[in-house]
C-alpha cells in the first residue's frame, strides 16, 4: 500500500509549500504507468490530511495516459500497461509519458 506514502507525501509537500491559509483543493497528476493507483490515493488522502491544514480539501486527480515509443520501428503509441507490445512485434517500449506523480496546484483561501 505505497499509496499511503504517496498521500502522506502530497499532504506534507502542500503544507510546506503553502505556509498559511486553508487548503480547499489539491490537484495532482498520476500517470497510468506510475505504479500508483488513483483510487487508493483518494482513499488514503483524507486520512493523511486529518489534523493538517489540508483536512477536508478536495483531491482532484488528473490521470495521465501512458505513451510509449518502440525502439525497433520508432513508432509512438498509447501504452496503457507497462507490458505493451508494438504491432511490429517488439515487446518492450520506451516510456514517453505516464510515470507522472506530480502536485500541480492547490486552491487556498
Amino acid at each position, binding site marked *: 500500500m*505505497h499509496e499511503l*506514502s504517496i498521500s502522506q507525501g502530497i499532504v506534507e509537500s502542500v503544507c510546506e509549500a503553502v505556509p498559511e491559509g486553508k487548503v480547499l483543493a489539491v490537484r495532482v497528476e498520476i500517470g497510468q504507468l506510475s*505504479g500508483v493507483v488513483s483510487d487508493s490515493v483518494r482513499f488514503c488522502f483524507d486520512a493523511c490530511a486529518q489534523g493538517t491544514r489540508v483536512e477536508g480539501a478536495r483531491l482532484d486527480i488528473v490521470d495521465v495516459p501512458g505513451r510509449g515509443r518502440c525502439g525497433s520501428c520508432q513508432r509512438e503509441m498509447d501504452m496503457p500497461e507497462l507490458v505493451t507490445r508494438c504491432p511490429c512485434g517488439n515487446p*518492450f517500449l520506451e516510456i514517453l509519458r505516464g510515470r507522472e506523480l506530480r502536485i500541480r496546484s492547490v486552491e*487556498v*483561501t
Partner: protein
Amino acid sequence: MCATCGCSGTIGAESAALGVHGHGPSDDHDHDHAHEHGHDHSHGHGHEHPHAPSGPDSTAARTVQLEQEILGKNRLLAERNRGWLEGREIFAVNLMSSPGSGKTTLLERTIRDLGKEVVVSVIEGDQETRLDAERIRGAGARVVQINTGTGCHLDAQMLGRALHELGPAMGSLLFVENVGNLVCPALFDLGEGARVVIASTTEGEDKPLKYPHMFRAADLILLNKVDLLPYLTFDVGRFTAHVRLVNPTAKVLEVSATRGDGLPGWYRWLASREASAPPRV
C-alpha cells in the same frame, strides 16, 4: 452565536449529531440552528474544527501553482545517500523479492562465502521482529534492523538513518534487504548502487508479468531454489522470456542459496560492481 464554539457560523443537524463541526464560507450568520436543542451528551471539544474565515476578502480562493514531484523529497534524500555511499566507495545492493524467496538464506550464504575477502554489512527491513537480523549476525556480518511497522517498503530517509547507525566501512559491501513485497519497494529510490530482484522456482513463472514495475527496475535478477527444479513444473525458459518482456537488459542468474549452484556467478557480479543504479525516473 454558536453554542458549541462561540463562532458565528451555522451547523447542520447531521454534523451536529456526529459531533463534527464545520462552517461554510458563505454563512449568513442568521443562526437559527440545530444547536440549541437539548443534547443529552456533553460536547467536550478536543477535536479539530476548521472554520472558514468570515472576513469578506479572506474567503476568496486563490490557486497556487506548485509543480512538485510527489516523491521529490525521497529522491533528494536518495541522492544524498548515494553521494554518501559513493564517497566511501561502498557498493550498496538493494535486495527485493516477495516473502519466502530466500533473501535471508542467500545473504547468510553470501556473508559466509565472501566474509573473508570483503567487509559485508546488512540493513534489514521487515515490518516486525528482529529474527532476520539475528540470522545475519549469526552469519558474521554487522547488521541494523529497520522495522517499518505498517509500512510496506523502505524509503530513503529510513536508509539514511540506518546508514548513520551502521557506519559501514570504507570500500565495503552493503546489502539492504528490503521488505518482502514485489510492489511497493519498486517505487522508492534508496540511493543504492544496484537493485537485485530475487525470484524463486516455487513461485510462478509469470511473476515478471504480474509485477512488471519491480522487474523493470532491476539490474540483476536471481532465480533462486533451482535445486528444487526436478520436483517442480517451473520452466526456466518461460520465466526468462517473461523477464525479457519487461526488462530486456537485466542479467538473470540461476542460483541455489542452499546447495550453492550458480553462486560463483553472483559473487563475480558483486565483485565487478558493474551495475550502478541510476535514480528511478
